[in-house]
Every structure is written in structure tokens, then in C-alpha cells.
């Protein structure tokens, strides 16, 4: 059995976090989302993986290489134009044999999810799940356990059963894909609809994990799932009077200063420096070389590589891109907010700040809940940020 993972898309709805890497490479629990997908396949003995790459493909190639480090054998297919998911699968065809599975590289799944797909699907199958926001997805209409049709982003409520974008297919799908491509339809759900007209397509339910990231705040849910079962690891230098509770993974070369309080689950990448009396609360991931200043509190947040937070800062329910640096007293507290992404407003119940890579903050900056600061913005000391600040901007 081989697997195709779709990883060519940019992920424009991810705000500043896809400025220099594709969505599938955004880290949650200190590993790219795509790594969980590859891992789930390898855990089920599926080692031959075809990765369809496109946007910033080099980031994926550099990380996964030939797959050896992940127990997989990875081949790459470049989709130069992101025409659609069916087109992406068709590009992978030369490397596939009769039966194969298709997964989306930006949906976090576990071994059970993939195991159910492989074991239960005897013919073509689609994995479905319940969703509380079905209108963002393809809603599946069923007859028993047979797929009748998939309706993309329906304007009216049909049901709450959605297509997860995970499929078991065989080469016969390519006939439908090619025919629809001639009509200008390049998405996989259309091909499945056509397929379902001529043969049984199983709608498969699973107890396995499937978490989608549509918007930046979804990353916090992925992160929680990723580090819920993190290994308890101690490395580096931990000074006296440090309190560590729950599962906390401390990477190589970390320095944790006296008086720090760490409540797991937490994941600290290698080379982090946690200042005296800093407080880290669940479920927080720190990337590599992150510096947390004295007396700073971070809760339920993702801080990517090389972030540097000055003393006496507060960061809650936030996603902070690589290399963001803030002098003392950054205030990014959580609260309900309306957030605008790609010209659409979203009511988010609990959100802190979304900060793009290499943004720089002076001291005493306050960021209102749900604000987005795009990459490489410079914010002067004492500023108060509300709404969205464009990339490379300067805030005085």
C-alpha cells in the first residue's frame, strides 16, 4: 500500500504563518503538522509515501529528505499550479500502484485514523466525521454507509457529516479524474461524486483523531492534541527551586533558571532559556532557542523557533512566529474577539495575539485580543495594537 499526501497548498487563511513556509510545515508540539501524518502512515506499515508539493516546496524537502529519519521512503511530485486535489493526485499517478490512500498534509491524524482507513476500506472509501462548522467543508449525503454525494461548502444545512479529505482509492478513479479535468473540474470530491454514481463508495467512520487547521487559532487545538501525551523528558541545565509538574519535555541544552514554574503538558525545544520566576502553563510549545524573560507568563500558546520575550510579559492563547522579539512587558492577554482573515470576520471565543515571524516589539507594548501583527513589523515601545498590522510595517 502506498500513500499520497497533499502538501502543495499555501494555506492563505493561516495569516502570517505561511509567509515563508507552507501550512503543512507549521509546527505544533514542536513538529510540523505533516510529520504527524507521515508518522501515522508509518505506524501502520505504510512506508512508501508520495508527497505532492508546491508552495515553498524546499521547506518540505529539506525537512523530510528521503524520509529515512521518519521510517518512510518519500518521493516528491511537484504540482506547479495548485489546480485542485484531483489534479494533485493525478500528478502522483506514475508512482502509484493499483490501491492507495490519499491524506491531506495539513490535517493532524493519528495511527488509529489511518489504521481504520486501511483495514476497513475494501473498495473506494471516504473517511467522514462530525463537524460543528460543516459549512466550511464538503458535506456528505449517505445512503446507509454508502456515499451518495459530497456537497462542497453548502449554503444550507444538510447534515453535520463532513468529508475529512482522507480516501482509499484504486486506479479506476483516474478515469473519472481525467474526464472531469477535461470539463475543468479538478477537485477530488467531484471525482468521488462521479465514482459513486457507478460503484459503491464507502463512507467510513473512525474513532481515530482528525483535527483540521483552517485558521491560526485552530493551531492551538492541534498543539494541545500534539502535546497531550508528550514524553516527560529532562535535559539541559535546570537550576534549583524550579517546579515542574505534569508532563514536560525539556529539550537538549535548555537552561531553566531558579524559581521558574512549569505546569505540563509543555514541550520545550532544544536550547531554550527560561528566565527566573517565569511561569509556563498548559498547553504551551516552545520551539528551539526560545528565550523567556524573568517573571514572564505564557499559557496555551505556540512560540516557534528563536522567539525572545522580555521580562514581565504575559502571553495567553497566542501563536507567535519564529524570531519574534519583544523587550520587557509585552501584554498579549486572551479574550473573546472578532478576527478578520481574508476579508471574513470570525468570532473567536478565546484568543490572544497572532504575531508573524521576525516582528519586533519595543517595551511595554499591549496587543489587544485577536490582533494580527504580520511578519517583520516593527512596533515602537508603549504602542497599543488593535486589528491587523500589515507585513513589514512600522507602528509608532
Amino acid at each position: 500500500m502506498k500513500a499520497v499526501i497533499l502538501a502543495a497548498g499555501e494555506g492563505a487563511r493561516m495569516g502570517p504563518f505561511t509567509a515563508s513556509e507552507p501550512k503543512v510545515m507549521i509546527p505544533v508540539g514542536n513538529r510540523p503538522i505533516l510529520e504527524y501524518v507521515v508518522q501515522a502512515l508509518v505506524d501502520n506499515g505504510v512506508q512508501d509515501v508520495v508527497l505532492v508539493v508546491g508552495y515553498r516546496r524546499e521547506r518540505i524537502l529539506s525537512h523530510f529528505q528521503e524520509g529515512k529519519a521518519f521510517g518512510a521512503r518519500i518521493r516528491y511530485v511537484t504540482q506547479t499550479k495548485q489546480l485542485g486535489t484531483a489534479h494533485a493526485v493525478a500528478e502522483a499517478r506514475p508512482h502509484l500502484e493499483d490501491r492507495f490512500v490519499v491524506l491531506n498534509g495539513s490535517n493532524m491524524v493519528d495511527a488509529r485514523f489511518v489504521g481504520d482507513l486501511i483495514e476497513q476500506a475494501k473498495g473506494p472509501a471516504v473517511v467522514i466525521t462530525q463537524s460543528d462548522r460543516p459549512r466550511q467543508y464538503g458535506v456528505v449525503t449517505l445512503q446507509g454507509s454508502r456515499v451518495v454525494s459530497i456537497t462542497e461548502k453548502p449554503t444550507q444545512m444538510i447534515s453535520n457529516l463532513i468529508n475529512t479529505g482522507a480516501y482509499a482509492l484504486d486506479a479506476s478513479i483516474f478515469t473519472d479524474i481525467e474526464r472531469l479535468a477535461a470539463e475543468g473540474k479538478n477537485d477530488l470530491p467531484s471525482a468521488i461524486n462521479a465514482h459513486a454514481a457507478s460503484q459503491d463508495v464507502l463512507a467510513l467512520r473512525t474513532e481515530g483523531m482528525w483535527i483540521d487547521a483552517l485558521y491560526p487559532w485552530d493551531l492551538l487545538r492541534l498543539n494541545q492534541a500534539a502535546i497531550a501525551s508528550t514524553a516527560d523528558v529532562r535535559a539541559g541545565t535546570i537550576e534549583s527551586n524550579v517546579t515542574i509538574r505534569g508532563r514536560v519535555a525539556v529539550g537538549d541544552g535548555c537552561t531553566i533558571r531558579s524559581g521558574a514554574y512549569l505546569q505540563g503538558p509543555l514541550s520545550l525545544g532544544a536550547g531554550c532559556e527560561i528566565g527566573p520566576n517565569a511561569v509556563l502553563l498548559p498547553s504551551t510549545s516552545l520551539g528551539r532557542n526560545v528565550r523567556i524573560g524573568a517573571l514572564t507568563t505564557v499559557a496555551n500558546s505556540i512560540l516557534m523557533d528563536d522567539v525572545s520575550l522580555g521580562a514581565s510579559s504575559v502571553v495567553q492563547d497566542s501563536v507567535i512566529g519564529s524570531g519574534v522579539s519583544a523587550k520587557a512587558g509585552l501584554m498579549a492577554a486572551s479574550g473573546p474577539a472578532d478576527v478578520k482573515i481574508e476579508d471574513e470576520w470570525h468570532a473567536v471565543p478565546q484568543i490572544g495575539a497572532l504575531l508573524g515571524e521576525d516582528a519586533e516589539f519595543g517595551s511595554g507594548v499591549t496587543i489587544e485580543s485577536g490582533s494580527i501583527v504580520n511578519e517583520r513589523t516593527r512596533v515602537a515601545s508603549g504602542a497599543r495594537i488593535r486589528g491587523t498590522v500589515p507585513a513589514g510595517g512600522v507602528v509608532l
Partner: protein
Amino acid sequence: MCGIVGYTGQRKALPILLDSLKRLEYRGYDSAGVAIVGSELKVVKDKGFIANLEAQLPAIEGTTGLAHTRWATHGAPSKVNAHPHVDCSGRLAIAHNGIIENFMEIRERMEKEGHVFASQTDTESLVHLVESYYDGNLETAVRSALREVRGSFAIAAVHADEPGRIVGARNESPLVIGVGPDENFLASDVPALLKHTDKVLYILDKEIVVLTASGVAISDLEGRTVSREPERITWTLEDAEKGGFEHFMLKEIFEQPAAIHETLLGRIANLDVNGFFAEGFTSVKLVACGTSYHAALVGKYILEEIAQIPASAELASEYRYAHGPSERPLVILLSQSGETADTLGAMREAKRRGCKTLGICNVVGSSLAREVDKTIYTRAGLEIGVAATKTFVTQLVALYLIALRGGLDRGTLGYEEADGLKDQLRSLPRAVQAVLNRSEEIERLAEKYRDAKDMFYIGRHVNYPVAMEGALKLKEISYVHAEAYAAGELKHGPLALLTPATPVVAIAVRDHTYEKMRSNIGEVVARGSPVLAIASEGDREIVKFVDDVLAVPELPGIFNPAPVTVAMQLFAYHLARTRQCPIDKPRNLAKSVTVE
């Protein structure tokens, strides 16, 4: 890392083994050897390169054999410690990859039983142990021996009494079998097999495999048969190694943000050197060859600016023959491999003169690392492309770390200032990534300049040696003649060479030399030479008087060398590619130069 290959079939084993062995060269090694079973067992081995071994090999008949590249762990790299190892009778030969933990107790036992050891290796104890169990069946002897062995291993064994048979086994070290028609192969890694077959069997831990020309039989340590179908490898040799990139060089260029990260990990807060920089010298001399010499030249500026320590750089081949003044500087030696002959010579000369020595190298346990007082490893990983890329950039990172630590320990750098510098170091991976994101734009620029016969690179201050590195990259891989000059020196001679047919790459990032660089670019433009400026993002002035601009993120002056170098690496790469040059293996050049 060691590598093993084995062959049994109808063809002559020797050429197949040597060819397969070369495909494991990337794993790194310090000695190599072969064992062939024909009418008798013949073993030839030596320290050094496979080519070195090949040169002294007689034509050995025989259609079964094994070969090995060794990366020294127990016992120094030498002819006697090279594999394969033979038993007392000279009829059994074993090649081994990994470490046998309880080799001392086995060795003592075997010596008591009268076995005579030739080497200091852990492997040889296994050879004699197998010999002690041998009663005409190699497979059962290996099985009995392995039950007593602790550690990680992949082994391959042959016996003169059983021609046509290879016995292999693994535990925690890789071993794969290549299945062919009327012949079978064994190797540490798939690339060694792909030329001959795409059908492979992965051997798992605590399994024993017996190969003959006609079959492969796998069993466990208890002797129970294991059945497993071969898998088909659907990619080619080249893909397997390059992970989807067109060339190793491009792969390695794109690995630089990760390599910088690795080198920085855990060292920003505290480069752990036990006060090495605090005392014992008043100046620093940086000594190296080739690309590492350019890093040394940049290092002079880094150490002087950040740590306020007087520094100078010198070529290793010059330093070692110069008469040393009475001053005793700290001598920092830079070498990717840690085996560069001239740099080792310079290091020994520095020690003879009584200087403290510090090595910056990428290979753990290399000669340089073993002999200097202190080593800072760059953690760039394996570099296969002959043109150095990630190893250069990580050398710069090591120098920043040294300057930071040195400045703090000597009291010449304040803590406030150090914090600012640390934040800059943290941002370096993304500054480099920002340049990589412009790869396609750089490709278009390279196409525009592809027909140049001569090019000049100019820069000032820290960017002068960076210009030298840029020119070297272009020379090495695209064969375009390129020279670098300190921009202020143009009017003292080189201007005479400039014509509309000599493009000039000018490093004109915004630092304290920016205004002067603009005047120098003016001098060039006046001679009609096309100018490609490497400038800071958002510089709207420079576009007005140069032909092309390649933008790099704006950083404090001393941190510019990393992103600027990466821009020039990509320029050289794409230019060489449009000229269809053999990028990963330029003519006349070798990766690490271990001859003087």
C-alpha cells in the same frame, strides 16, 4: 559511519564490491578493505581512501566477497585496524559496523583460550568468538557467537571452507539485502545496491541471513526461519540521496537555516568553554585554507567588533612556514573535515610555538579536534557537494558564538549589548531563509549573466572577504573566472580590467560603508560594466544607478555575511546550472584536501 557491502553470484566479486563501496562513501570513513573467497580467502585493506585501496589491489579471482569502509571508534585509523578482520586460521573474515560493548571480556576469554589478536578493534573479538564455534557451518557458528554479544552491529562473514556463501546479521545497525537473478547482494544502505537490483529485503534486529548465488534465507537467533517478501525500490540512486533536490549543492544550500539552528542550539545562552577565552592571550590568529580561510577573514572582523580582541587571519599553508614573532596569540584553526593537511600542519606549528589552540570543525573526532586544546563543532551535518555552503555559514555562526563568549568573559562586551547581539543571532536562520525564498528571482538574474567570461566581486569591511567567497563559489562550480577586490582598491589597479563585458557583483548593504560603496559603484558604472548589487531590502536609492538588485534582509553590519553569502551561493549555483556544469563534482576538485 562504517559501511558494509557483500556479493555472491556468477560475476567477479571485486569490481562489484568496490563500486558498491564507493556508493557508501558519503557515510564518511578513514580506511577500507575487501575479503574475497575464491580458491582461498584473500583479504586486502588499508588506511585512507577506497581509491588508495584500489591502487594496491591485485586482480583477485572469486565470485563471493565482502568489503568495508571503517570510521574509527575502537582503535585508531590504520591498516591493521581496518576491516575485514580474519581469525587465527586466516580462513574466516568478518566485516562489522557498530560497537560491540562486551568486547573486552570476550577478548580476554579468547586470549586465554589461545587466540592471537592482531588489532585493537572490538570486531576482532567477534571474529575469534565465531572461530571458536566453527565446526564446518558458518551460520550456526555466527548464531552461537551472537548470543553472547552485546551491542549494536551489522556484520557480514565469509569462510574459505564455504565458498559462495555469506552470512550476515544485524542488531541496531542497518543491513539490507539486494535480490538479483542468480546473484545476491548485502549492504548497509540501499544506494549501494540500486545499480544492480531494485528488489530489496530489509533485515531486522536479531536476524541472521544467509546468502548464496541462488537464494536468501533469513532466520532468527533461535534458528527459526523468517519468511519475508522482497520490496521494490521505486526510486533511483540519485533521488534517494538528494531528497528531491536537483543537486546536493542546492539541497545543502537549502539546509542552511536548519544547520545554523543546530550550531546555535543551547549555545546562545552559554557557550560552554570553561573560561577558555578569559585569559592567556592578547590577540587571535585565525588560520585556514580555501572557503574556511574566507570564514577566518570574516572572523577577524567579528572578533574585533564584538569582543574587541585584535585578530588577524592567515592561510594555513603560509602560516606554517612563516617565522613566528614572539607574541603568543590564541590560534583558531578552521577546517570542515578537520583533516586538511595544511591546517593540521599549521596547528602543530602553533602548538610548537606555545600558542593556545582552538579548532572549529564539522567532523567529530577528526585529527584537528583530537589535537587542539578546545574544539567548537559546527553542526552542519554531512556536506556532499564539493563547493562548501552550509559548512561555511555554520563556521561564521561558531565565530559569532566565540566572539560573544570571549567578549563577555574578557569584560569587553556588556550584558545589555550581548542581549541585543543574541537576538540578532536568533534571527539569522530566517534572514537566510528570506534569501532562499528569492531563489527563483536569483535564477533569472543568473540567466542574464550566464555568458560572462570574467566577473568581479567587490565589497568593503566584513563584506570584502564575503566577496572573495562569492567569487570562489562562482569559479569552483561555473568555471567563470571571478576575482574579488576590496572596493576601495579598485582605483589602485583593477579598474583597468573593467569593460562592458565584465559584470561586477557589488555588495552594497546598508552599513557604515554604504556611502563609500556607492561611490565605488559609480566608478564601475562609469567604465560601462554591468552592476549587480546585493543590497538591503527596501533600498530605493541603489536601484537608480545599478543594472540589477538582489535584496537581502537588513541586519546590523556584522551579521550581513551569512545572508549575503547565501545569495551569492544561489547566484553561482543557478549560473553553473544554466551553463550545464557538473555542479556537485567540479573538475580537478576534491571535497577535503588531505594532501599538502
